């Protein structure tokens, strides 16, 4: 039964997947990105040693939340101001 379901899912999904065919990322880009991420990971280990993330986790969460809300609000208002009919200044 399970194999049947999986086979049916494959029949449905494969045509959908074939619709997308975006370009692949060059291997050099993948290599560079991996190297950069590894450096960041190593650096974070050192930063965490002097500045424990557990101690500032809430601070970062609060900062990101407020930052996101504020700039989302500004973005929405910027769009709204572009609509003359609304007359929002």
């Amino acid at each position, binding site marked *: *039964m*399970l194999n049947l379901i*999986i086979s049916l*899912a*494959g029949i449905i*999904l*494969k045509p959908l*997947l*074939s*619709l*997308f*065919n*975006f*370009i*692949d*990322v060059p291997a050099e880009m*993948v290599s560079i*990105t991996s190297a950069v*991420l590894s450096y*960041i*990971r*190593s650096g*974070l*280990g*050192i*930063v*965490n*040693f*002097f*500045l*424990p*993330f557990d*101690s*500032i986790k809430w*601070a*970062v969460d*609060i*900062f990101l939340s*407020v930052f996101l809300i*504020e700039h989302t609000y500004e973005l929405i208002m910027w769009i709204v101001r572009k609509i003359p009919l609304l007359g929002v200044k």
Partner: protein
Amino acid sequence: MAYAEYEGLPNNGMYPVYWRGGEPLLGLGYGDHADFYQLGKETNSDLYFIDNLPSVSGFRFMEFRLDEGFIDFNYAPDLYDYYLLCTVAFPNGNFLPQVGLSALMSTDLNYSNTVYNPFVDDFYVYDHTDSDSRGFTVFAKFPNISVSNNTSLIGIALTAADNNTFIDAGVFYFDGLIIAVDKSVSSTSDALAEIILRLDDIDSDLVSGAAGIQSAIDTQMQHDQQLWNDTYDPDPDQAESDVGSVIDNYNTQLGQSLGLFDYVSSVTTDFVGMFTTSPGAPVLTFPSWSIVISGASYNVWAEYPVDLSVLLADFSELLAVVRFALVVVVWGAVIRYLWGVWDRIFGGGS
């Protein structure tokens, strides 16, 4: 040792009961002064082993018969002493080997039912319980029972005593013999002594054989159960694993189709994951340096990692101060930022 098999009814909630009879016991020869009659087996029509029979009184759980198809047997108590030798093994079973014995003598539809107590003379129960199986061998002397007609039909039922429980009895092995000893032979006691002497060997033979049967049946039942499960009732963990692998497969295909977009998503996930998972060890790695002269590479110095964790041992207090100061700085910065946001929104530009 070959076995005949009767397969019980695998009723719902009840154990399938496999009845196994054997050929005449190995190790017992036919002497001049004793004859051996192989007993046939019959199942009790009420024989069902439920998970737990909490308390039964005189539960007759097996029956031997001399019947058609076996050696012609004439009951002649005036000429012979009759002995019953039967062994019951419960491989992997949990059974209290406490039994009674009743003899049902067929005499023109008139049955004489005698129940023997295992704790009286002429009734021996050999318990050969070990780690793999449980069982017992009964060696009992038949009393003289008056019959109106000699007959080839004789039945012996083994009966469990009160408060015995059958738990996971599974497979039974049993075998039985009637031994008829000629009273006119002076060496009757020698024959009985020989029979008793060999009981232990017979027991171990039967028990090991029964254990082998149990193992084979268990293997087969597990195989059948696995087939059933694979077909109709897959193991949830296995099903989850299968579905997971299929999803992973399609995710891979989707990633290949989405190309650049999937890669950006993957890198973003990795980047965020670095903050949500436990950071690595605080190791500062000084890179190696090599120079190339005339096409040959010379390593000036190798990569040198420094584990900052050693600071915890020697400068723990200083480190605590540094950590506290940095945490205060971060929290202060956030509070200052929040203050600024509040001032921008609600401060009216003051």
